[in-house]
């Protein structure tokens, strides 16, 4: 893709990102949110983030097959990240230690 195409992609991405952020905010800032909707929404982020992690750690994203424990470095690094996140509750620490862990583990385990 050329720079012009990249620019078009950015503008379209902005619109795609803006819709879901703006429309519900606009609707529900004047109307009451149904109680069940809020209760349901509580479980959406945890479900989505888990699915995204699973995609990176347990799936081959070229042909979408389950790879089991093939990416051992990522699996071990993920255990470390969860422990650090739980103890420190700091996003920065979790990411930095995660990167260091995966870099070190990739030397001995398949990434």
């Amino acid at each position, binding site marked *: *893709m050329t720079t012009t*195409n*990249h620019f078009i*992609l*950015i503008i379209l*991405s*902005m619109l*795609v*990102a803006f819709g*879901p*952020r703006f*429309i*519900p*905010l606009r*609707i*529900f*800032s*004047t109307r009451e*949110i149904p109680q069940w*909707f809020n*209760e*349901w*929404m*509580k*479980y*959406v*982020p*945890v*479900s*989505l*983030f*888990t*699915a*995204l*992690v*699973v*995609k990176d*750690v*347990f*799936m081959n994203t070229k*042909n*979408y*097959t*389950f790879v089991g424990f093939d990416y051992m470095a*990522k699996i071990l690094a*993920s255990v470390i*990240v969860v422990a650090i*996140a*739980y*103890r420190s*509750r*700091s*996003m*920065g620490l979790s*990411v930095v*230690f*995660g990167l260091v862990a*995966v870099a070190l583990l*990739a030397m001995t385990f398949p*990434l």
Partner: protein
Amino acid sequence: MEKEQPRWAEVFKIAMPLCLSYIPIGLACGILLNAAGFNPLLTALVSMLVFSGGAQFMIASMLTTSAPMHTILVMLFFLELRYALLGSSLSQYVRGTSKKFLYFFAVSLNDENYAVNYLKFATDKEWTPKDALMVEHYSLLFWTLANLIGSLIGNVIKIDLAIVDYALTALFLYMIVMQIKNKLTILTSLISAILAIVSMAVLKSTMGLVVATLIASLIGFAIEDTLVKKGHTKGFWLKRIKPKASRKVISR
């Protein structure tokens, strides 16, 4: 009595942990975008206009596998769809603001500043929509700068991209941990993991993520609803899990 500080400084102190944690992730994202062929100017632009770690990492990795533009946009739409949920849960706190304000607020809303603002709105009566917007803008500034610097670093040194790519996964893992409130959240997470594997393997696309998210969240919601109706609010599944460390890192 504490010394009276200007409001922007007080809000900055609250946004600070968030801003700092954007630096490593922003650097990683900038490096990946550079590898995907974005020049530093475009990287800064996408950071300001899209302002979403997940979306930008995805743009970078899909461009390196030369996916067509419409595929990237469809994937982004599903990824960004979660902001609909974040937005609707914040909407009760931004009642009575102008349409213009909502426009600006929505543009720079994302997962992390949402977490800070939601917590502040829920616990601090003094917290105003204007403060919340300021938090968004501080995080936007740090995010854009980190991306820009990452993009410039990527030009100079060679870095293993598969490793940098893991920054996003670490970020999501962190957000999962922060979402864990009781054993039912853990169960929902496990259900989502299994559903994600099955649905991605069957659908052969990231649509599986959307399917897994919708079904798992509905199951979590249904279980909670059933438990509450039976009066098990303090039972095994719904008893609150207290974090070992204090929450001050993100909540103050």
